[in-house]
């Protein structure tokens, strides 16, 4: 009876999902997204789908064959040490609510979980088949079945390891004790792998190119130690790489045995499945919600909030409250990630340059270059990903609309708040870049360049950032459903993201063009009168003023759009 109910749930959910996706295409925004998404897919993967035109047939000596078992072994080791448990065990909140309280055995739940993921594995296998840079020797249906079987065994192993880890987490007294058995197995396996690799090291080092090196590694992995460790993975991959049907039939029983063993292991596993699965589901739901909000860093609930960067006076322009809020969001959510990224990038580059050139000066110049690059990247890319602006607040539109603010003031404050957040970071990066450049001696060699960077660098970055944020917020106001929580994850969602990216590029060009022309004229005029440096400064200032003028006009217009936007019709609130 329970099997019938769970089967009904699986079947109907799949059918309704397909029907919903199809009916969604009646809406132009999803239809356009689907067309663009399919077009992109065909454009990118189309050539590789033609198996006879582009891709060579997989040879037994191909590094994909020789190294794949090692890669899978590393993946499995990772699961045992770090656990994939949050994603593998996760049930949806509805499943937890309905199924966990229903009179179902734990085995039925595990079986349901295994079956539910099967369809996804078939799609994944088909995708792998399409994007593989080589053609598998077998006909595609056999290749597809082989990949699905391998993925299923791996998935079940991941689930099994997650259940064991969940069980140990509940019963073992310490993290160290939980890791004892995997650690012992890992050390033995590592020793066995090294026993094969070490004798081959001279040959690997002496390799003329990457292909030769990979070939030597392949030879090393065939020695007795590595061969024993990697034997199960060789068995798993044998049908996929089989050169003919006879070899495929010879390899298939071993995979089926592995599958059966894993099935028995997972279903008979005596772990605290429900608790682990419910907790994993909760964390996944939170992670997805954060991702939809544009939050990239996971927040610990118990973590105390850092202090606000400036005290908000209770009276004054109300829009400042929005700016203050957006800067706070940045400081609490994104800043640590940015700082870590910047420090890591600089440290890596500095060490690499220092090791290769033994020159502190070169290291400093390279660090300045990396910092300048980070400013450029933060200007172009960050406004797309960091949504501490109207995009992040759209889901709270029911609240925003009750605030005593005109649309233009709200839109301006949202954009200024987000821009100010990034400007703070860009200013810090610029100071570090100039300091590094001075340390590297650029102050003597190219004083004009350094002065220009110091004077015009930040205004230029801030202006470009504000333009990017204005464009992103304009897209959010005109296509709110495309940036809200309801953006689909399928091919139409991918198409929508491509359209948005292209749209934002076009809008940025439209903003930059008039201001750029006026700036260029100013540059030419000033260059004729006073020379290069003055011309460049004059051109940059005029262009920046032009862009800000355009942005001011755009914000007034967007304010009207915001005032007229009906959040119910736009699907922002239900």
């Amino acid at each position, binding site marked *: 009876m329970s099997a019938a109910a769970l089967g009904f749930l699986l079947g109907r959910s799949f059918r309704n999902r397909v029907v919903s996706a199809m009916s969604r295409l009646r809406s132009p925004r999803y239809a356009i997204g689907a067309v663009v998404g399919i077009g992109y897919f065909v454009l990118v993967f189309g050539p590789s789908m033609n198996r006879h035109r582009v891709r060579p047939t997989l040879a037994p000596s191909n590094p994909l064959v020789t190294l794949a078992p090692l890669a899978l072994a590393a993946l499995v080791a990772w699961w045992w040490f770090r656990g994939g448990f949050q994603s593998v065990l996760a049930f949806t909140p509805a499943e937890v609510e309905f199924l966990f309280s229903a009179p179902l055995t734990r085995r039925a739940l595990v079986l349901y979980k295994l079956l539910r993921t099967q369809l996804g594995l078939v799609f994944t296998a088909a995708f792998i088949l399409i994007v593989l840079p080589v053609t598998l020797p077998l006909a595609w249906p056999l290749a597809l079945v082989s990949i699905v079987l391998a993925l299923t065994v791996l998935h079940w192993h991941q689930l099994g390891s997650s259940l064991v880890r969940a069980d140990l987490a509940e019963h073992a007294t310490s993290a160290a004790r939980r890791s004892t058995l995997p650690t012992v197995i890992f050390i033995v396996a590592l020793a066995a792998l090294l026993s094969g690799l070490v004798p081959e090291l001279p040959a690997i080092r002496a390799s003329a190119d990457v292909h030769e090196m990979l070939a030597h590694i392949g030879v090393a992995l065939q020695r007795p130690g590595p061969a024993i460790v990697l034997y199960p993975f060789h068995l798993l991959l044998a049908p996929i790489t089989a050169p003919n049907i006879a070899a495929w039939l010879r390899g298939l029983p071993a995979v089926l045995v592995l599958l059966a063993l894993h099935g028995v292991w997972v279903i008979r596993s005596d772990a605290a499945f429900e608790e682990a699965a419910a907790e994993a589901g909760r964390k996944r739901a939170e992670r997805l919600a954060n991702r939809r*909000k544009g*939050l990239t860093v996971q*927040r610990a*609930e*118990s973590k*105390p*909030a850092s202090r*606000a960067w400036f005290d*908000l*006076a*209770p*009276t*004054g322009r*109300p829009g*400042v*409250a929005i700016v*203050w*809020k957006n800067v*706070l*969001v940045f400081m*609490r*959510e994104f800043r640590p990630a940015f700082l870590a990224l910047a420090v890591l990038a600089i440290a890596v580059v500095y060490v690499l340059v220092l090791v290769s050139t033994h020159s502190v000066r070169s290291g400093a110049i390279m660090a300045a270059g990396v910092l300048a690059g980070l400013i450029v990247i933060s200007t172009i890319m960050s406004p797309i990903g960091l949504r501490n602006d109207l995009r992040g607040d759209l*889901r*709270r*539109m*029911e*609240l925003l*609309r*009750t*605030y*005593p*603010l*005109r649309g233009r003031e709200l839109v301006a404050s949202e954009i200024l708040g987000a821009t100010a957040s990034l400007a703070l970071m860009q200013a810090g990066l610029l100071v570090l870049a100039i300091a590094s450049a001075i340390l590297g001696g650029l102050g003597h060699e190219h004083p004009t360049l350094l002065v220009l960077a110091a004077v015009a660098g930040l205004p230029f970055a801030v202006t470009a950032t504000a333009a990017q944020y204005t464009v992103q917020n304009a897209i959010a106001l005109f296509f709110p459903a495309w940036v809200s929580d309801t953006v689909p994850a399928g091919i139409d969602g991918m198409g929508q993201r491509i359209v948005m990216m292209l749209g934002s590029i076009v809008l940025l060009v439209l903003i930059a063009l008039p201001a750029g022309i006026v700036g260029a004229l100013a540059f030419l005029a000033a260059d004729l009168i006073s020379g290069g440096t003055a011309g460049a400064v004059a051109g940059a200032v005029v262009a920046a003023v032009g862009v800000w003028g355009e942005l001011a006009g755009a914000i007034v217009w967007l304010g009207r759009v915001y*005032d*007229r936007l*009906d*959040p*119910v*019709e736009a699907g922002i*609130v239900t």
Partner: protein
Amino acid sequence: MLDIQHLTKSYGDTTAVDDLSFIVQPGEVLGLVGPNGAGKTTTLRSIAGIIRPTSGTIRIAGHDIVTEPVEAKRAFAFIPDEPHLFDHLTVEEHLRFVARLYGVADARERIPALLDEMELTERRAALPAALSRGMKQKLGIACGLLHDPKLFILDEPLTGLDPAAIRRMKETILSRARAGTAVILSSHLLQLVEELCSRVLVIHRGRAVAIGTVAEIAASRPELAGRGLEDAFLALTEVART
């Protein structure tokens, strides 16, 4: 305080609110009741300026919500059934944020008192993720009370609150009304509406089917004489349905 005339809100062929007119005086608590999909939330959202009416006028403290939105919005507070909080503002920062939006000059003195009243003092530095559903609701109510609104718009205000907080919320609503605040309260809890509201507006399929005190509404139909709001509500919406 709130004057609604011929309010209509349509979505395509669907009319969510149809020619609704009523007035809420200062100090009055008006209960807005109706079955699911009757148009209560659309009415409240129109009053709060969240959505624009298709036709009709809404005046709050003398200001039209469409033509003078900022002035009108300064006069009211809207508490939706689901609290909308900012993930990265602490409890106290929410209040400081709202204080600035509404220009509450004495916010520094009022905020501790409000936190105390809502039993949120110990959680003043907590982010919303660390708050229970009830605490979030209390914070939403505190934000609404901070600027001393002349009109209080409440959509299912007791959702998620514990019994003590429910009692305190009822006292808050009544005390604000006694101080002259106009209150419009939407709820499915008919006992609550009967207990708190001086008048009740029953709407069904977007239209007003009755307005007045519970006694007046009951008196409109002989078979309801002496009966409570629940019987009147069921009878009225049943009539409207048939």
